[in-house]
């Protein structure tokens, strides 16, 4: 096994799936010659040629729409949108077509595509480069939303997403792209969709997060230095959500903190709290607490630290919930 960061592990997953299945094609802005703005697709053009690694015109709706057509006619396109903030242009295509083609043709036409895009703040980027608006997609029946948290997870989840028969929005945490290296196997490695991962077991409290928030949660726990026995759940797939894993854990611990990078209101965190309310209310020793960004526009880099969730806020939420 080789140590790699998430950029490298995603690249490996793409390369291996393209080798395994000739119907897998990549398309997006700068994915070819340039290897992508984050170099995620580096070397793939040389390996697979211009027919399968397509530098497209600069048009996100077109990328999504063309990928949908490809998927309807037997290809498995993996489309890249350079930043989630540019992905809003794909919404009409993803919501009106990708998400419902299977239903409206009663299964005759399907859209097995992946829309990859880096998401999230904490990297002092330009305007519109720090979005985490996953809830725009999780609200849509027919779309799957997957968020890896580590290099190994990214390889397994992306491989499963490419093989999935339904459209997947694959959100890559920009901040985690090069943050951590871990051992990633070459060859067959998949992580099933819609199955959360228990990062660590515990009995006092459940902390739920995904993507770039997982390292922040781990830092918070480090700073608590074993004061509480916390169970950490990495959701991996936000939709369809693994409710069972959440309910199982909360029934065991009786306390829950959800950490969501996105603005607080109407987000995935609220959905998790609602499900706990429906299925584990009587197990709760304290209200479910949400650690989330405020409902404001993400500040530009000078103000970003006010906005971005660090370990301190997670730590105090855990302490509040434990002392309720």
């Amino acid at each position, binding site marked *: 096994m080789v140590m790699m960061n998430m950029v490298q592990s995603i690249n490996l997953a793409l390369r291996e799936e393209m080798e395994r299945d000739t119907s897998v*094609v990549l398309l997006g802005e700068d994915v070819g010659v340039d290897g992508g703005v984050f170099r995620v697709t580096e070397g793939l053009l040389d390996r697979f040629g211009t*027919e*399968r690694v*397509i530098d*497209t*015109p600069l*048009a996100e*709706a*077109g990328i*999504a*729409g*063309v*990928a*949908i*057509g*490809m*998927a*309807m*006619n*037997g*290809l498995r*396109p993996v489309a890249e949108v350079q930043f989630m903030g540019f992905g809003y242009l794909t919404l*009409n*295509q993803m919501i*009106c*077509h990708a998400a419902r*083609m*299977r*239903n*409206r*043709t*009663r*299964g*005759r*036409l*399907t859209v097995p595509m992946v829309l990859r895009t880096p998401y999230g703040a904490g990297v002092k980027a330009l305007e519109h480069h720090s979005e985490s608006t996953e809830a725009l997609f999780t609200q849509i*029946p*027919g779309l*799957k939303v997957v968020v890896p948290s580590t290099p190994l997870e990214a390889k397994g989840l992306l491989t499963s997403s490419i093989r999935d*028969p*339904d459209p997947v929005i694959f959100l890559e945490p920009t901040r985690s792209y090069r943050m951590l290296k871990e051992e990633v196997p070459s060859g067959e490695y998949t992580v099933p969709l*819609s199955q959360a991962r228990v990062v660590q077991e515990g009995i006092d409290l459940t902390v739920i997060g995904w993507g770039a928030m997982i390292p922040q949660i781990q830092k918070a726990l480090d700073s608590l230095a074993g004061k509480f026995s916390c169970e950490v759940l990495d959701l991996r797939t936000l939709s*369809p*959500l693994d*409710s*069972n894993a959440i309910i199982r854990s909360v029934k065991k611990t009786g306390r829950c903190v959800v950490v969501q990078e996105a603005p607080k209101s109407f987000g995935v965190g609220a959905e998790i709290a609602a499900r706990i309310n429906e299925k584990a209310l009587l197990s709760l020793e304290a209200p479910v607490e949400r650690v989330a960004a405020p409902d404001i526009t993400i500040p530009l880099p000078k103000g970003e630290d006010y906005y971005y969730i660090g370990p301190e806020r997670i730590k105090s939420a855990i302490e509040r919930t434990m002392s309720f």
Partner: protein
Amino acid sequence: MLVDDFDPLKGKRLEILRKDGSVNKKLEPKIDDDILLKAYRTMVLTRVADEKAVKLQRQGRLGAYPPTKGQEASQIGPALAMGPNDWLVWAFRELGGLIYRGVPLWRLYLYWMGNEEGSSYPEGVHATPSVVPVGSQVPHAVGIAYAAKQRKEDTAVVCFFGDGGTSEGDFHEGLNFAGVMRTPNVFICQNNQWAISVPRERQTASKTIAQKAVAYGFPGIQVDGNDVLALYVATKEALERARKGEGPTLIESYTYRMGDHTTSDDATRYRLEKELLEWADRDPIARFRVYLTNRGLWGEEKEKALLEEVSATVEEEVKKAESFPRPTFEDCFRHTFATMPEDLREQMEALRRELPTGRE
């Protein structure tokens, strides 16, 4: 090549079958008699089926419906030119083309009656479902064509949209991608002069829609949209170019919507009777009938028999659509994903218990 001889920037428009049914001999295509007769039958069937759909809507037996009257040649001409494996990507006013390509009429009725089963076409019919968000099907046609090309299939993709659709970003992005990728696409704009109440001149300051192709780096041609022979010839040439790897073509089918935008619309609010009468005089079916008669293929008795046969067919298709079972409760959940997520199954069961008796 036609696209060289009929440059839209020089104000040229391809016309072969004139409104009085006479024909430009120099441009007249050689089409087998049985194909001509099949085309004529489909045009008449489309007219009758369309009028029936409007009646059904008025009787509350079918939902909102976009009448296609006057645009039969515009849809069936291209369909004549298509190969068996070619795809038809359509908007929502292409009834004739779909019938000719083998989509059963009863399924199309079923769709407009509000049943998704109407968009589940038979195996081997390469067509996408109706697209309501205007113009958004254009990039799909490019992706479908790219996939066909990548697999070295001898398949081209014909994509329909309206004059209103050309104002949408998806039209621009789709045609731009197609030009760059040189995909085997034929884009057909059914310019029926009106996008609900907005006339063509308010849609674009371009003199023609065909000329927009110039900017995308491929040929465009304006064709008399009520002339089934002109549509056939232009599409055939475009498809040949597509199959040879010479890229896409934009065909502007200059036609007219004789009916309302949909059954919910009242076109008398925005357009004049005079215009309608002028276009009635250019009817695509009437002139084709004269052509067939002049070729000795048609006559009054045949016409009478055809109308009877077609009317009976339409009634049969309506019966099939109306007797098709409504979707089951499970049907509405089943096709959200390939495998139903556990939470969705739970929602389904919970809702089933809550539905008033008899709703299921």
